[in-house]
């Protein structure tokens, strides 16, 4: 067993951290307040080649794994950029995965190099208002007509849809068979045709800088060649995106927790009340120490799941566990950090408040804590399915 990062991974951490930290907390506060997309930040990462981290080298990327993408996203989050900084970048990391693994050569040649440079802005369309986590019951339909599919339906929680040029889209191409509910779903990688897709932004608790949306698809035409993998097997192809998504979002929560913890520790050393730094009080110190320990633990689980994925091994249980533990650890760290700051924790200019709002997301998305526990109960512990 070897827990050491390679020299290259160390350098990735260091340089991502330096680049991300060149955008100070005030930048993110302003983006959050004005609900402005962080174009400058994404451009800086595009120029330095980070968007191509998992795109294979023959398609213009760097061909690294979920491990390296996770290290990158962790350090973006930990820089204080939080979810506002991670979300635009992670869309270059897990949505392309099914295309890389299952896409045709034509599809890969056409799109992957443009994803690597950041020319393509990705969105991801799986969740639906009437299906939620019950993905097999999605209602968006794709009907074959000649050399193309015609898609109609609705999706919700489409991040980036205000600016997206392309989207990964899951739609039903055959009626739901209760015996094999996940068959008959097809995955598409397609252009975001705004003449056929209407986008409505959803105002939300955190991450105002990066839009979440509801989209209405009305007669979207998708050429046959834009099917990812096999028609009818889209859900299974999507799993290659969902496990990395859990790992990457999990480690983002760890990074956000660390950003908040670092602020809290500085504050606890400097803030003098009753003639002593407040960090001298165990009631202040212990929650921070506990947060540190849990963040370390959560990071290990994320990196283990990433390692399994990168080595082509099953990682469903581990990816889910990583997301579960990381979302808790990240939230507890932000909450302890906010509490440490007292009243100032509630003030925007101390930056913990934004992180606290952002980190709450990870207990809900990309999958709720409860559904993770269901997954572990059923698929790891083999207990009877509860729903």
């Amino acid at each position, binding site marked *: 067993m070897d827990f050491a990062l390679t*020299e*290259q991974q*160390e*350098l*990735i951490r*260091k*340089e991502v951290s*330096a*680049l991300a930290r*060149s955008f100070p907390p005030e930048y993110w506060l302003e983006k959050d307040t004005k609900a402005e997309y962080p174009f400058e930040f994404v451009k*800086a990462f595009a*120029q*330095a*080649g*980070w968007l*191509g*981290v998992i795109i294979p080298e023959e398609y213009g990327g*760097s061909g*690294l794994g979920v491990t390296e993408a996770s290290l990158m996203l962790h350090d973006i989050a930990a820089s204080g950029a939080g979810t506002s900084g991670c979300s635009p970048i992670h869309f270059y990391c897990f949505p392309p995965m099914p295309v890389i693994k299952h896409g045709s050569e034509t599809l890969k040649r056409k799109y992957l190099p443009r994803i690597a440079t950041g020319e393509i802005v990705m969105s991801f369309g799986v969740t639906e208002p009437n299906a939620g986590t019950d993905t097999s019951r999605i209602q968006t339909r794709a009907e074959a007509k000649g050399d193309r599919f015609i898609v109609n339906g609705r999706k919700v929680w489409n991040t980036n849809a205000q600016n997206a040029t392309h989207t990964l889209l899951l739609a039903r191409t055959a009626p739901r068979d209760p015996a094999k509910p996940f068959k008959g779903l097809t995955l598409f990688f397609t252009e975001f045709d705004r003449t056929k897709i209407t986008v409505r932004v959803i105002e939300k608790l955190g991450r105002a800088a990066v839009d979440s949306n509801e989209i209405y698809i009305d007669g979207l035409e998708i050429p046959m060649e834009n099917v990812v993998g096999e028609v009818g097997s889209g859900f299974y192809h999507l799993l290659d995106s969902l496990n990395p998504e859990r790992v990457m979002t999990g480690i983002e929560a760890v990074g956000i927790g660390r950003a908040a913890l670092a602020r809290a520790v500085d504050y606890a050393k400097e803030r003098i009340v009753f003639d002593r730094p407040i960090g001298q009080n165990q009631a202040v110190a212990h929650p921070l120490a506990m947060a540190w320990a849990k963040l370390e633990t959560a990071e290990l689980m994320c990196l283990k799941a990433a390692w399994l994925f990168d080595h082509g091994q099953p990682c469903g249980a581990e990816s889910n566990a990583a997301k579960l533990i990381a979302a808790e650890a990240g939230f507890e760290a932000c909450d302890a950090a906010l509490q440490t700051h007292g009243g100032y924790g509630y003030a925007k200019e101390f930056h913990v408040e934004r992180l606290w709002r952002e980190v709450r997301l990870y207990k809900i998305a990309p999958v709720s804590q409860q559904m993770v526990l269901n997954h572990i109960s059923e698929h790891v512990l083999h207990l009877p399915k509860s729903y």
Partner: protein
Amino acid sequence: MKILVAVKQVPDTATQVKISSDPKAIDTAGITWIVSPYDEFAIEEALRIKEKRGQGEVVAVTLGPDRAKETLRSALAMGCDRAIHVNDPALANADTMTTARALAAVVKQEAPQLVLCGRQAIDDDAGAVGAQLAEVLGWPCASWIMEETIDADAKTVRVGRQVEGGLEVFDIPLPAVLSAQKGLNEPRYPTLKGIMGAKKKEIKDVKASDLGLSSITPELSITALEALPARPPGRIIPGDVKDAVKELVRSLREDAKAI
């Protein structure tokens, strides 16, 4: 054109440096190490010169322990072509003059047309190595440069160096040693491809004996390091404004002798 860039690994600017149990050294436990920021200007300028001329080679060199290799790896990730690591326990306590002599030996072996370095390392802030290196080599030197233009034949360089209220402009024959001031350029961030490529670039390990340095006798030695005295706590003068001001003035005059 071949350019040699001398770089140093230093504690991160955000590090709270503490003195170790050995009062002549700092406690290096838990320190994050970075390339000295002024050296990054030097690396960037060397890369720009190479890019502008469309050919050339940029060689990074450092003197330091094993961990200093990270600094060279960063320089390679930024775009330097190869690196030289002068790594010898005999040089562990090198003063600026010893460092300059070791670097001069590297320069003699490599024979670059230009040596660039930062105006000072931000750890001990001596700011001496660049000028001492030029002196050992017998080369001209300009410190704290804000701009440079090399002529087409790479025979001379015109430099502007920062002085009070303006620039002092010199024409200097090459080879020469230049030290970089903040403002010379904006250093690039290494690209991911640069980082991946850095792994394949050569870092040559060099010992003092490889440089023909037989006896190493520092001319400076550190007697002791002292932390700054703790700042005495502030004092709040209570009472209403009229009395408090009187007491403040008295205290400034008699206790602090400030007025």
